């Protein structure tokens, strides 16, 4: 039965996620950051609560009056704060419940995750205690109803010789000190929650505790609009000599209260106990084969070894043990973490079908964010220790210079606004963060340590949101935000063996970065650069590789045009760039090839290179999509499979 419900939940959840992926994109999908959103809402509740507390008076009469004064006397701030306090609390309940349901649906509650499941349950209970406690503070008819109903419910327990509800029989039964006690509890409980949230996330490697900026802004704006459209208000002042026939309940917190009268307090205790018992048993009931054992994972060619805890995904184990695997959404949607399992068996986990095809699975691919080992594994991983020295950051930058080097190519120099040079490595890239969401990836075009500025080569894409902006509106001095450096650097770990670089159009940028770095470090291995383009103007910086050729005897440059016009008077090579390489190197055994070009060009070149003796492990690519699609990003440099 549990499995059936779980499978149905999974079916529903995957479809909802997929829909939201289309709307928000995987990296901004709110369902992938429910815990972080709940945490963010917690801070909203805390900040708005502190403001309200500054005006709150603890007394039987003052409590209601002070809240009314805050709500109506300063509706523009106090009223909005009160509304935010309420709606953010309700939002916390909603996001936490969906977070729980999602973890159940995705079977992320067994093994080492059981700890987070149980602490999450306690957090949910504390949230209810704190929220219900908060409603008492207003001391309106809703507070009166909650006070009486809560004590009637508690009195069912045979532990009170004197019924608690007698404290709310008469108006004079309630005194000022009671509200001081309530305030103390209403501040103390969230403090305990804060400590427990830290514990809750501690067992999950790299658990996300902050939602993405766009989502955070979206949530704040939504709640602000809601606060203005439907401000949170009190009901009539509490009067224990009367009872309101109708009460406007906050169903997020008080959904079970009507059952006290519809059923009986005892039956509600039975229901609560049953639900809690079920929640406590779920990690055991949902335990599966993949959550049963610990396994050892070794990586090749970079020899690293790390272990997984029962139920832990490959990515979680890697993050926990400082193995820097690439990842994005961590929920099986974006495909960034896709990698090769060379030996061993994995449970592929639950993921969006488009992120990993059956063909890719047959080829040994898996999504490391979802896959859990079923045996010891060997996976493909290219480590670069230096990555640790260049952690990705989000920062602002200013457009230092703009140089139009071809009709459709702009060279940008961006100066980070954060003090100190940005550390990065050749063939890494940055993501420009666009206003209103979205990002565009561009490779570094300058060499490590060459300048404190970032050089990007931007090719205008018809209809492209960012590239059109660059060519029509951007001016020197404008500021941008970006995240980076990102991506795995190209590791030239065999500096003396021959290497052929294949660049297509602005694919020259990362190759320039790699080559300048190689020249700077005195690499002696022989190097060729084949730069392919349609017309001479696409070879926008041809003087540079020509100069390198003159200056470095181990470097050869071959420009290749696919469609030169007679008026171009082109004297050089004509045809497809990879065919030019194969004409010059019929046997590629012993060579390495690094291709940075469009996906189509790379896909055409790879099988041809392999057919001519190029070893798979010596074939690297940085393929990119030239499209207006918001998800278009360059692939990580990795051996082509």
């Amino acid at each position, binding site marked *: 039965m549990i499995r059936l419900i779980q499978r149905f939940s999974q079916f529903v959840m995957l479809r909802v996620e997929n829909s*939201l992926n*289309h*709307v*928000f*994109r995987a990296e901004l999908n*709110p369902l992938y950051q429910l815990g972080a959103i709940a945490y963010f809402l917690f801070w909203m509740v805390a900040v708005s609560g502190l403001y309200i507390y500054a005006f709150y008076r603890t007394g039987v009469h003052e409590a209601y009056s002070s809240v009314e004064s805050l709500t109506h006397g300063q509706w523009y701030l106090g009223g909005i704060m009160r509304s935010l306090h*309420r*709606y953010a609390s*309700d*939002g916390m309940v*909603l996001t936490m419940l969906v977070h729980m349901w999602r973890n159940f649906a995705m079977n992320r509650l067994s093994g080492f995750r059981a700890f987070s499941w149980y602490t999450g349950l306690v957090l949910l209970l504390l949230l209810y205690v704190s929220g219900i406690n908060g409603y008492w503070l207003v001391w309106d008819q809703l507070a009166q*109803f909650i006070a009486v109903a809560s004590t*009637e419910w508690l*009195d069912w327990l045979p532990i009170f*010789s*004197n*019924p608690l*509800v*007698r404290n709310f*029989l*008469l108006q004079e039964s309630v005194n000022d000190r009671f509200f001081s006690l309530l305030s103390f509890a209403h501040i103390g409980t969230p403090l305990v929650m804060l400590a427990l949230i830290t514990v809750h996330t501690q067992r999950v490697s790299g658990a996300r505790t902050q939602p993405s900026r766009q989502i955070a802004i*979206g*949530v704040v*704006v*939504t*709640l602000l*609009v*809601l606060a203005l*459209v*439907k401000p*949170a208000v009190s009901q009539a002042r509490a009067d*224990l*000599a*009367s*009872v*309101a*026939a*109708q*009460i*406007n*309940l*906050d*169903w*997020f917190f008080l959904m079970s*209260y*009507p059952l006290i*009268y519809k059923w009986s307090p005892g039956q509600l205790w039975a229901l609560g106990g049953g639900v809690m018992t079920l929640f406590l048993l779920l990690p055991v009931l949902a335990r599966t084969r993949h959550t049963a054992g610990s396994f050892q994972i070794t990586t090749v060619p970079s020899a690293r070894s790390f272990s997984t805890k029962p139920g832990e995904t490959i990515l979680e184990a890697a993050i926990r043990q400082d193995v820097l695997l690439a990842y994005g959404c961590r929920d099986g949607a974006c495909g960034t973490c896709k990698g090769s399992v060379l030996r061993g068996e994995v449970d592929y986990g639950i993921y969006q079908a488009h992120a990993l095809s059956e063909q890719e699975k047959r080829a040994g691919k898996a999504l490391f964010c979802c896959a859990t080992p079923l045996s010891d594994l060997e996976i493909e991983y290219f480590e670069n220790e230096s990555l640790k020295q260049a952690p990705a950051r989000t920062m602002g930058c200013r457009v230092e210079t703009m140089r139009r080097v071809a009709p459709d190519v702009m060279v940008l120099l961006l100066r980070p606004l954060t003090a100190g040079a940005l550390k990065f490595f050749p063939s890494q890239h940055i993501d420009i963060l666009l206003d*209103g*969401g979205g990002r565009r990836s561009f490779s570094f075009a300058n060499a490590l340590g060459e300048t404190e500025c970032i050089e990007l080569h931007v090719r205008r894409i018809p209809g492209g*949101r960012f590239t059109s902006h660059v060519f029509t509106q951007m001016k020197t001095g404008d500021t941008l935000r970006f995240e980076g450096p990102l991506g795995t650097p190209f590791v030239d770990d065999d500096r003396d063996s021959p290497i052929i670089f294949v660049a297509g159009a602005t694919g020259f940028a990362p190759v320039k970065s790699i080559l300048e770095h190689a020249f700077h470090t005195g690499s002696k291995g022989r190097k060729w650069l084949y730069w392919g383009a349609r017309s001479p103007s696409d070879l926008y910086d041809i003087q540079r590789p020509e100069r390198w050729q003159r200056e470095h005897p181990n470097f050869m440059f071959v420009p290749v045009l696919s469609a030169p016009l007679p008026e171009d008077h082109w004297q050089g090579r004509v045809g497809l760039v990879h065919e030019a390489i194969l004409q010059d190197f019929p046997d590629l055994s012993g060579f390495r090839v690094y291709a940075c070009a469009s996906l189509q060009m790379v896909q055409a070149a790879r099988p041809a290179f392999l057919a001519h003796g190029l070893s798979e492990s010596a074939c690297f690519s940085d393929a990119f999509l030239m499209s207006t699609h*918001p998800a278009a990003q360059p692939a990580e440099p990795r051996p082509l499979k």
Partner: protein
Amino acid sequence: MKRTLQYFGQACAYALFAALLGYFSTSPAYQQLPDDYALVKLSFSHAAQRKHPCRERSAEELAKLARNMRIAKDCPRERSNVVVELEMDGQPLYHVVLPPSGLAHDGVSSVYRRLPVRAGTHRFVVRLKDTEQGGFGYVREESVSLEAGRVLVIDFKADAPGAGGFVFH
């Protein structure tokens, strides 16, 4: 076009989020009592009389006790049940037998009962018996006009002024 649709979809998602929070934070209203009803709350805590009366210890009994335990009276701790009856307009509304609390059954007997009644003027008779023998030692009759939504609290204090020890609030 696709981007416009995405923004529209995001706006819909946020609007749905807001609508859920906005609606369920106050609605639907919960009817805790029918509109033309009032509420009677019968509640008190009362220590009943001892189940067995105290008796004088004989000289022999006292001699057998340790010096510090030699108290002339032997009073069993156990208390009687409290029996309560509430009538409204001549009809029984509530009847309960309340055992004393505590492991030795020597504590107070407590009751809290919430009784919705139709609004209007009603004649209430409430009786309490707190001894093993005899009838109801405390009785009070009262006509009360109850408006819709009013709460009548019937408390009991053995030392309350007036007849019966029952207090109507």
